[in-house]
C-alpha cells in the first residue's frame, strides 16, 4: 500500500485562516498576558515577597507539619467536641433564620411577582449591600450588640446569608414556568392564589436545595467566626495556633473536615430526596 504524505501546501492555501493565526488576536493575547505578568510582578514587590522570607517560612511550615503528627486533643477532647457542636448549631440556626427572612424578600426582589419596580430596586440594593460585607465583619458588629458568644455568630451568618438568599431566591422565582400562574388567573384566581398554587409549589424544592447547600458551606464559615469571638471551634483553633500546640491544631482541623464531610453527605441525600419526590 502506498503511503500518501498529506498535501500541506494545499491545505495551507485552502484554509489560510486556520493555518496562520490572526495577528491581531495574537497581539491581544500577548498584551493581556504581559499586563497580567507585570501586575503580578508589581504585586510581588509591593507586598514584600522575598525568597528569604518564603524560604524561612517554608522551613517553619515543615517543622509545624512534623509537630502535627500525631493529631491529639490533649486534655481538651470534650471542650473541642462541645465547641464543634456549637459551630454546627450556629451554622444551622443562621442558615434557617436567613432563609425565613429571605423568603418574602426573594418575592419582592423577583420581577413580575409582587410589588413594583421601586420596591424591587430597594430590595436588590439592600441585598447587594449586605452581600458586600463579609460574614466576619457582621460578626464583629453583632458582638457589639449581643456580646461575645455563639449568638453573635448565629446573627452574623443570618445577616450575610439574607443577602445571598434574597438574590438566589429571586432568581429561582423568576425562572419559574408562568403557565400555571396564567391558568390560575384565567380561572378567576387572585394574586395570592397564584402565589400559593402557581409559584410556591415549583420553587420550594429549589429553595430548599439551595438552603441545604448553604448549610454545608456555612459550617465552614462558622468555624472561623470564632476567631473574632463569635462562638464555635474557631476560638480554640486560633488559640491553639497562637500557642504553637500543633497536634491539637491538626486534631481540630481533622474534626472540622470530618464534620463538613458528614454534613455534605447528609445534605446531598436530603437534596436528592427533596428534588426527587417533587420534580415533575
Amino acid at each position, binding site marked *: 500500500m502506498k503511503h500518501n504524505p498529506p498535501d500541506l501546501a494545499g491545505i495551507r492555501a485552502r484554509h489560510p485562516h486556520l493555518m496562520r493565526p490572526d495577528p491581531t488576536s495574537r497581539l491581544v493575547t500577548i498584551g493581556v498576558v504581559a499586563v497580567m505578568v507585570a501586575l503580578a510582578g508589581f504585586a510581588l514587590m509591593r507586598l514584600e515577597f522575598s525568597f528569604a522570607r518564603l524560604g524561612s517560612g517554608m522551613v517553619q511550615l515543615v517543622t509545624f507539619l512534623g509537630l502535627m503528627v500525631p493529631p491529639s486533643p490533649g486534655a481538651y477532647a470534650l471542650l473541642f467536641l462541645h465547641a464543634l457542636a456549637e459551630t454546627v448549631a450556629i451554622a444551622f440556626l443562621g442558615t434557617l433564620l436567613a432563609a425565613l427572612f429571605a423568603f418574602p424578600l426573594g418575592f419582592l426582589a423577583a420581577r413580575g411577582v409582587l410589588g413594583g419596580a421601586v420596591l424591587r430596586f430597594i430590595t436588590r440594593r439592600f441585598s447587594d449591600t449586605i452581600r458586600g*460585607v463579609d460574614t466576619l465583619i457582621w460578626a*464583629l*458588629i453583632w458582638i457589639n450588640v449581643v456580646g461575645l458568644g455563639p449568638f453573635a455568630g448565629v446573627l452574623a451568618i443570618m445577616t450575610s446569608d439574607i443577602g445571598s438568599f434574597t438574590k438566589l431566591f429571586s432568581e429561582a422565582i423568576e425562572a419559574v414556568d408562568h403557565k400555571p400562574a396564567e391558568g390560575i388567573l384565567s380561572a378567576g384566581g387572585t394574586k395570592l392564589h397564584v402565589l400559593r398554587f402557581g409559584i410556591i409549589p415549583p420553587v420550594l424544592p429549589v429553595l430548599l436545595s439551595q438552603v441545604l447547600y448553604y448549610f454545608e458551606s456555612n459550617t465552614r464559615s462558622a468555624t472561623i467566626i470564632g476567631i473574632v469571638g463569635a462562638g464555635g471551634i474557631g476560638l480554640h483553633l486560633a488559640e491553639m495556633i497562637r500557642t504553637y500546640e500543633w497536634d491539637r491544631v491538626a486534631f481540630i482541623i481533622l474534626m472540622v473536615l470530618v464534620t463538613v464531610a458528614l454534613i455534605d453527605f447528609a445534605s446531598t441525600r436530603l437534596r436528592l430526596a427533596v428534588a426527587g419526590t417533587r420534580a415533575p
Partner: protein
Amino acid sequence: MAIPSHLPQIQVASLLALYDGDVRARRRTLWLALGVLAFCILVAGQVSEIDLPKFLTNFHSFPNYILRIFFLESGAVVFSDVAEWFWGLKKWLLHIGDTLLIAYLGTLIGALGAFYLSFSAAANLAKSPTRRFIARRILEFCRTVPELVFALIFVVAFGLGPVPGVLAIAIHTFGALGKLFAEVVENIDMKPVEGILAGGATRWQAIRFAVVPQVLSNFASYGLLRFEINVRGASVMGFVGAGGIGQELIEAVRKFYYSDISAILLLIIGTVILIDLGTEHIRRRLLSAETGR
C-alpha cells in the same frame, strides 16, 4: 364531596379516595419533617446559648450602633463634614489597593496550580485512577479548610503582613478552581483529543492543542468569579494580621472609632460592587466571544 363530572359517581369516588390518601400521606410526611426540624432548632438553640429575653432587651443597640457609626466624634452627622469623615482616605485607599493586589496574586497563583492539576483530576484525561483520586483529595482538602485558618497558620510561619494572606488565598483558590476546572475538562468534546493523539502527539501537546482551546474561556470566567470572591476574602485577612484593609477595620471596631467604621465599610462595599460589575462585564464578553465563534 360531590364533584360535577362526566364520570360515573363510583369512579369519581374511588379517584377522590386515592387523592385524599395521597394528600394525607404527604401531610403526614410534612408534619414529621416539621417535628424533626423543631427538635433540631430546640437543640441548636440550647447549644448556641440563644437568650431571647437578653436579645430583645439589647436589640435596640443594633440600630443604635448602625446609627452611631454615621456620626462623627463631634456629634455631627458624617455627611455634614465629608473631609473629616474620610480623613484617612489616602491611607485607606492604599490598603484597599493592597487588598486588591492580595486577591489578584492569590487568584493568579491558585489558578495556575489549578490549571496544572485539573487535567489529572478530570476523569477523561487522568493518567490513572490512583492519580485522579490523589489529585481530587488534595483539591478537596485545600478548599474545605477555610482560608482564614491557613492564614492563621501562615502568619505564624511567614510573619505578619500580606505574604501569608496571598498564600492562604492561593491555596483555597487552588482547591476551589481545581474542582471547577476539572469539571469543565470533563465536559469537553473528546474527538479533537483522540484525533491529535492518533496523530502521534504527546499528552501535553494534546492538552495544548485539543483541550485548552475548548476550555480557556470557561477557565477565565471561573477565574474572574473567584477573583470577585477573593476580594471579599482579602478584605478580612487583616483580622488575623495577614494584610489589607481588614487591619484598619478591626482596629476601628475595637477602638470604637465609629465614623471610621462606616467610612472603611463604605470603601469596601464600593470596591466589591465595582469589581463585581467589572468582572461581570468581562465575563459576559468572554461568553459572547465564545458563542460568536
